[in-house]
């Protein structure tokens, strides 16, 4: 206790902290499995499922059981928060656009013009790759569709687009994407 702040951690809280600490090791192991190679989203999902399952199993043991619903909720929020932090870091490492440009300059080992940097991006796939990749994601999610040489929003895509613009205006963001 410091003042009126009580640092006592119940067993369920300790279980959540251990599960959160285990996550990077599980992810590192799964990312090396041949069947999951280069499938970053699936690697993260599988690791999350394993860690959450281990957390749930551990809480079933009498010694680690939560003493109240509030302790169980605390334990869950700690684990969920940790997974969100890992997800943000993982997304940055595996999908970061600016980071990709930095690494392209790092791998190139010599100065590049803007055009050379754009062409060398993602080990020679070029910056057009990111557009094809993101567009492919939107197409497979059914948020846009092809129509001749154009890209057209679907109904769901239009709703998300309008909500996105409203949120950007509410947050007063001047530059996005």
């Amino acid at each position, binding site marked *: 206790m410091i003042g009126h702040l009580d640092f006592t951690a119940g067993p369920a809280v300790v279980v959540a902290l251990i599960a959160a600490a285990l996550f990077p090791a599980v992810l590192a192991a799964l990312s090396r499995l041949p069947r999951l190679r280069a499938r*970053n989203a699936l690697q993260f999902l599988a690791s999350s499922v394993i860690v959450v399952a281990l957390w749930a199993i551990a809480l079933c043991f009498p010694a680690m059981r939560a003493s109240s619903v509030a302790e169980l909720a605390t334990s869950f929020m700690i684990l969920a*928060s940790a997974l969100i932090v890992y997800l943000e870091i993982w997304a940055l490492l595996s999908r970061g656009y600016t980071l990709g440009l930095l690494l392209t300059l790092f791998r190139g080992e010599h*100065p590049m013009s*803007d055009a050379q940097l754009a062409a060398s991006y993602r080990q020679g796939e070029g910056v057009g*790759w990111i557009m094809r990749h993101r567009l492919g994601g939107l197409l497979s999610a059914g948020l846009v569709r092809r129509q001749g040489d154009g890209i057209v929003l679907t109904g769901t895509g239009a709703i998300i687009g309008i909500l996105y613009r409203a949120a950007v205006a509410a947050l007063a963001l001047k530059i996005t994407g």
Partner: protein
Amino acid sequence: MSEAFLLGAAAALLWLAVVLVLLRLSKRSPALIVVLSAALVYLAALLASLALAQRVAFWPFSAAYGFLTLCVLMLFGALYKSVSLRMLGDLSLAVGHALPEQELLARYIEEDSFGRRVAILLKEGHALRTAEGLKLSPKGRRIAAGIYRLQQAFAIRASG
């Protein structure tokens, strides 16, 4: 314990209000504003809880605050940086909700997003523009080497 949850939720609401004001008033990076203010409001709420007459449970308070702010931060990150969401937003403004594919490519990748990200690398001092072209600064090289090692540890072949 439920008081700690309420205190955590109240602190998260206070942070959201602070963010909404600061994003309108400050010219600093929006990402820096939301992350730094989240940490500062957390510290301020912890200090304030020391002055409270009744006991506050640290873990439930921190879990509630952390979970709520991280949920908002995740949404904010998507709004602020997602190329896909920006494409949807701009398409929703276009006539007939449609744009030629090549125009999308030119607009987001070659003209806008790419140029802006190169400008960020230059502004943050991670890269330098020389007569031969763009090259990494010593700081940029250190950061890139660290990220490269991290990618190797998790078998990430490329980012983007």
